């Protein structure tokens, strides 16, 4: 049962369109992270990865959640998201696993590149406010474009937001994933399956 878990859905603008799901912990209705990810694992086989932001989660609980997720048969990748300091708090080799990775969250103009090039990072997510400001300010726009280029060169996945003119395209670069418009996000996986049963139904952001 996944009722009650608040989710945000993400989709790649590029073909073939792939999708991801984010578990929003503020609405996990008091469930432990382990229980929540275990419940979700049953229903997200057709998504590429599951994002869970863990900055406010205790280190031991994060490790329990990783264990719980790995015990499931789900082939989806678990992508934990947070700041560099949260990653450091988890220890030197926190993801001794084929199925778990780390996303550096809240990238903005102040994020040091030394954090982005850290070897455990496999994705970055830009702060929506920064993306919005970068759309209005050329200097910030150049920072965003340079950061996207760095992500490309490293082979990282870049998650963005719609809060920018031009639909998230910077020069010849664009975000790999964008959130589905909130109106189309559903409160539970079960409802999502009913409404968005096929992968193509998630082709939402814009044409390339």
């Amino acid at each position, binding site marked *: 049962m996944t009722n009650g878990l608040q989710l945000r859905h993400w989709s*790649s603008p590029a073909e073939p369109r*792939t999708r*991801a799901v984010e578990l929003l912990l503020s609405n996990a209705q008091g469930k432990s992270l382990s229980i929540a990810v275990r419940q979700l694992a049953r229903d997200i086989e057709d998504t*590429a*990865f599951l994002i869970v932001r863990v900055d406010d989660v205790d280190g031991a609980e994060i490790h329990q959640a990783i264990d719980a997720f790995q015990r499931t048969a789900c082939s989806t*990748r678990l*992508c934990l998201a947070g700041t560099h300091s949260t990653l450091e708090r988890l220890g030197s080799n926190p993801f001794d696993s084929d199925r778990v*990775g780390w996303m550096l969250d809240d990238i903005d103009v102040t994020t040091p590149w030394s954090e982005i090039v850290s*070897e*455990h*990072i*496999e*994705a970055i997510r830009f702060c929506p406010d920064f993306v919005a400001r970068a759309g209005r300010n050329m200097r910030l726009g150049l920072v965003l474009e340079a950061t996207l*280029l760095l992500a*490309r*060169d*490293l*082979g*990282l*996945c870049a998650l963005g937001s719609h809060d920018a003119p031009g639909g998230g395209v910077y020069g*010849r*670069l664009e975000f*790999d994933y964008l959130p589905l418009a909130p109106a189309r996000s559903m409160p539970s996986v079960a409802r999502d399956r009913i409404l968005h049963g096929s992968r193509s139904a998630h082709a939402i952001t814009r044409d390339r």
Partner: protein
Amino acid sequence: MKPLTASPFRERPYSTAIELQENLPFRVRLAKGPQDLCKVVDIRSSAFARHLPSQGKALSTPEADDEFPEVLLLLAERKLDKRVLGSMRLQPNVRRPLRVESVTRLPKPYDGCRLIEFMRLGIENGTSGQMVVAALAKASYEICYATKMDFIVAVGRRSTSAIYRSMLFDDVLHGETVLVPHAGNLPHSIYCLPILEADRRWREGNHSLYDFMARTEHPDIHVDYRHVFEAFGITS
């Protein structure tokens, strides 16, 4: 060429020891099966289409060479969503001449040598994706060393020649070019790298990739050598 035997212990092709182990956000592996071939064709076609639209269209289906038993297709696949970031074809002359030999005769020193042609390098984001290029290059070079190839051969048009020059390849035609029908009929240079000299060249030249290649172990570059030896007809 006499048949080769694979050593049970694969020797490292570098003269320096590993100093660190590093994770990558993607995995490099051999493509296997029709699904992987589709992924390789997709990335190759879109990469070529950016520079040579007609070529991109021509490459939107697999080439006959892709299906040759001795041909290896390498791909780099993002861990997060398994999206393919890059691919390359390795085509040895163990069963038939190199593709480039249909265009021109290579100079005498290459007669009777074990040659392998690097072809169809395709990277998702064009000139970016440098880590992916480096990882594909490392995997390819290590395959060449393990299979006792003598020279890597590559053709490059003006824009891609920089990659081979930066890796300290020799310009076989000394500045001359040949028209390559299977690459848009554009003028291409031909580059060669002697496998047994590569480590020394990169080390003595303080090459920026040397630490990545030689001093760093990358568990995410995972080549199935049993498949490689089988493909190249090397008995164990």
